[in-house]
């Protein structure tokens, strides 16, 4: 039984990681909102020119999206068409869920891999963004392999939970109330 215990600890760890990503994503969103307001004040009220804000805000939202996606997967917030599953018998439903999750996993894993390549190129070649601010490109690209990597990990845990009957197929969305 200790074996199974280890797996459950691992799954809990992945869930915690996804939740932590969700927290980071929400912080990115909040920072983007704050910086947009700062930019508007600088530009329209003080008449000053703004250099880094546009790019910062754009990248913060990209980071929020990529880092937030494992959290959204965990809480079943990625919208899907659950018409067919709705009409299936439990066993068929489970197989369909496994099939759909495997396809989804494949998409996420491929994206992680190509995302990593893009990130690595930017890091290796020392690329900078094309703006006046010109920060190293690898910084905004980092959420690409990290966020999508954790998303793939979360998917793996989901598939395992489905296969080992720890979780019902096509469960209802989890509300944010019980999340930290």
């Amino acid at each position, binding site marked *: 039984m200790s074996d199974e215990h280890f797996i459950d600890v691992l799954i809990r760890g992945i869930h915690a990681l996804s939740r932590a990503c969700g927290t980071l994503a929400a912080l990115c*969103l909040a920072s*983007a909102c704050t910086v947009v307001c700062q930019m508007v004040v600088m530009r329209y009220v003080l008449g000053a020119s703004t250099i880094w804000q546009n790019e910062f805000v754009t990248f913060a939202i990209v980071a929020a999206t990529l880092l937030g996606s494992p959290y959204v997967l965990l809480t079943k917030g990625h919208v899907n*068409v659950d018409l067919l599953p709705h009409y299936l018998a439990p066993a068929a439903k489970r197989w369909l869920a496994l099939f759909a*999750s495997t396809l989804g996993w494949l998409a996420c894993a491929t994206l992680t891999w190509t995302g990593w390549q*893009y990130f690595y190129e930017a890091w290796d070649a020392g690329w900078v963004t094309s703006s006046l601010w010109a920060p190293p490109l690898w910084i905004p690209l980092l959420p*690409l392999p990290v966020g999508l990597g954790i998303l793939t990990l979360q998917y793996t845990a989901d598939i395992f939970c489905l296969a080992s009957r720890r979780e019902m197929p096509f469960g209802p969305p989890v509300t944010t109330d019980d999340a930290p």
Partner: protein
Amino acid sequence: MSPLSIGILIGVTTILVLATGIPVAFGLAIVAMGFLVIFDGFFSLGFVGELFFSGLADFTLVSIPMFIAMGAAVASSPAGGDLYGALDRWLNRVPAGLAISNIAACAVFAALSGSSPATCAAIGKMGIPEMRKRGYPDGLATGSIAAGGTLGILIPPSVTMIVYGISTGTSIGRLFIAGVLPGLMLTLMFIAWSMVYATRSGSLMTRDRRIFSLREKLELAPRVLPFLLLVAGILFVLYGGVATPSEAAGVGAMMCFILIAVIYRVWQPRRIWKILKSSTRESVMIMMIIGAAALFSYTLSSLFVTQSIAEWIAALEVNRWVLLGAINIFLLVAGFFLPPVAVIVMTAPILLPLITQVGFDPYWFAVVLTINMEIGLITPPVGLNLYVINGIAPDVGLPKILAGALPFVLLMVVGILLLCVFPQIATWLPDLLMGAGN
């Protein structure tokens, strides 16, 4: 294989993959990448990471999470209830007054939140039990809220309009303005139907005899007006071209947080955090679909599907209205199954060239497309609003909710027809405010 048959193959595969219940974003991504590998070889995956990233890294897209946060902030406060209460005090003696208050409150709240399910939930939570209490038929009580809620994506600011603007390269400010009159038109049509319904089944509804003094009527205004001024301000800066949509949305979101803190004392870190978390969830869901759609449309155009569909349709030389009819039916069916944002990102880049080629206005088309999507929100199998309503009033039951929504679906179809006959409903205001042409 000709690009056209590849296109059909991609279409069928997409339907099959999405039918498995896979999240829409990942479904689109796997179809896009799968076809790239099959037709362009494995190496073509090399660009995918960059494509996905650049599909997301667009300053205009920042407006989406900002408007969502703005809507979530308003929705988490009692503003919806106050809005509805304020209207009821003016309209309680009119036939079907309560239903009218509800529809009007939905229209206003739609402007604040830009989201249809959020509008449904915010107004419905107060409105549906109250209507049922006062003897309104269940179908009218639930149907009017379900339909009123759909206005969320038409009346500006609207997230789906932003998505349309980004995927077609049209002006978001102009799209917003184009949605104003059609939104009002639908609101009035919904109201008119409710009054007809009420007078026909008259005695069922106990009319509220209370007479409110002017003071009582104005009592709630100070709490409601600031939000209305905020939306008016956002529209003003957008159509005036003073600020970009992202700037307007960011400031709008911040102002909303300040307003709910001042007016409703919603400032506690725990509650603000909850609003942030729920807006993050919704934004991530939409943004992932947008990123995946960037891959999807890249695949379509690199396999020459987009171009050959346009050429094929042009070669058919069908009457433009026949074409429009076919497109409408296609959109309606797509809207039955898919959320509005997904339909728009997948189809708008293909449809827009066709539409402009035969001389239709892209802003007018945005309105027609949006009303089609609204219908999808209150029709089975995935009418999001129906499920929200079902959550609020589970004892009514989905079949009755559906039957109640049906007249409103027909009204929307009439709305689309009216827009076809009088395109000025959508184009007149943007022409007036921003000048003719695009």
